[in-house]
């Protein structure tokens, strides 16, 4: 049965919402923790919520609160944020070639690019979950679904954390820190099982990141982007040898 354009877009948007549910669940505890921390630094609850809604970058927000409290100047904090988030330029470049949609739509959707939405959309589209055809391409509607539910998790979690800072159970908060990593691993393992080349690229990315962080003392943002570019370059060279 052929679906009409609008119906198909709605179906893709719903698929995105479903796929993004794991990100929502991963963001909630991190965002709640951010809300709790923000409320304890003397910022108004509203200001903490605005930071999550506008900045929408997990690690940078934690870092900014830290620096803000220790009296670091505003331009320095902004520069540190830029450095930590520059890796998203690489992810956005990959997505710019794969999201189907007009440039205006893609510019709008780019606000929703995070480490998590990037890997979820690019990898679920490569390995397939749900019907094969529905996930092969990253339609604008599916990316929007993933982005909307992820963003909701981040903002709702922050507000929840500022309001209920005093009554949250510590054990639950600590254990849920694993959730985003569990999601990353659940995304990666099926692809690794399928292809030795993918397994090698991922392991190389992990090993390089570890070396760059611990031996070369790179900051987390640069370390991830450098390790990613080197490991994917090795993978591309391998691929060339394999296929052509």
């Amino acid at each position, binding site marked *: 049965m052929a679906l009409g354009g609008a119906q198909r877009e709605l179906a893709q948007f719903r698929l995105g919402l479903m796929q993004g549910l*794991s990100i929502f669940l991963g963001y909630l505890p991190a965002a709640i923790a951010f809300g709790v921390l923000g409320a304890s630094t003397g*910022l108004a609850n509203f200001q903490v919520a*605005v*930071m999550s809604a*506008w*900045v*929408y*970058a997990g690690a*940078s927000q934690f870092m900014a609160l830290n620096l*803000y409290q220790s009296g670091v100047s*505003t331009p320095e*904090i*902004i520069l540190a*944020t830029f450095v930590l*988030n*520059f890796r*998203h*330029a690489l*992810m*956005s*470049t990959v997505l710019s*070639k794969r999201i189907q949609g007009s440039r205006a739509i*893609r510019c709008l959707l*780019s*606000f929703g690019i995070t480490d998590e939405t*990037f*890997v979820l959309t690019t*990898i679920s589209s490569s390995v397939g979950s749900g019907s094969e055809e529905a996930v092969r391409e990253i339609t604008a509607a599916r990316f929007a679904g993933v982005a909307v539910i992820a963003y909701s998790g981040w903002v709702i979690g922050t507000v929840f954390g500022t309001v209920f800072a005093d009554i949250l159970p510590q*054990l*639950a908060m*600590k*254990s*849920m*820190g*694993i*959730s985003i*990593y*569990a*999601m*990353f*691993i*659940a995304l*990666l*393992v*099926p692809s690794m*099982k399928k292809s030795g080349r*993918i397994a090698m*690229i*991922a392991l190389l*990315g*992990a*090993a390089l990141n*570890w070396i760059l962080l611990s031996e070369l003392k790179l900051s987390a943002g640069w370390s*991830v982007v450098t390790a990613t570019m*080197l*490991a*994917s*370059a090795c993978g*591309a060279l391998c691929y*060339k040898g394999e296929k052509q």
Partner: protein
Amino acid sequence: MKIYLLIAGMALATYIPRLLPMILPERLQFPAWLDRWLQQVPYAALGALIFPGVLTSVDGQQPWLGLLGGVTAGLLALAGLNILIVLASAIAVVAFSLSIF
């Protein structure tokens, strides 16, 4: 007021790197080698995002608990379980271990 200036500045600092590549002309064709390179980026990024961050995922310390949660997730994903079940199980294993130790 100063805090809003900080937030607005940070918002630009996070949005600009996300936005810039999307401004590239729509029909711009990358050379084949660059396309091949970019196709591998998600897997390399996943590896780098998982490790060693997973070791500090539980309370910023206790690397063994992070590792335990990560290995749990890996084994269940290997068994082909749904992503949400993998997620819930990893949280449960870490919570259980935290409450014992």
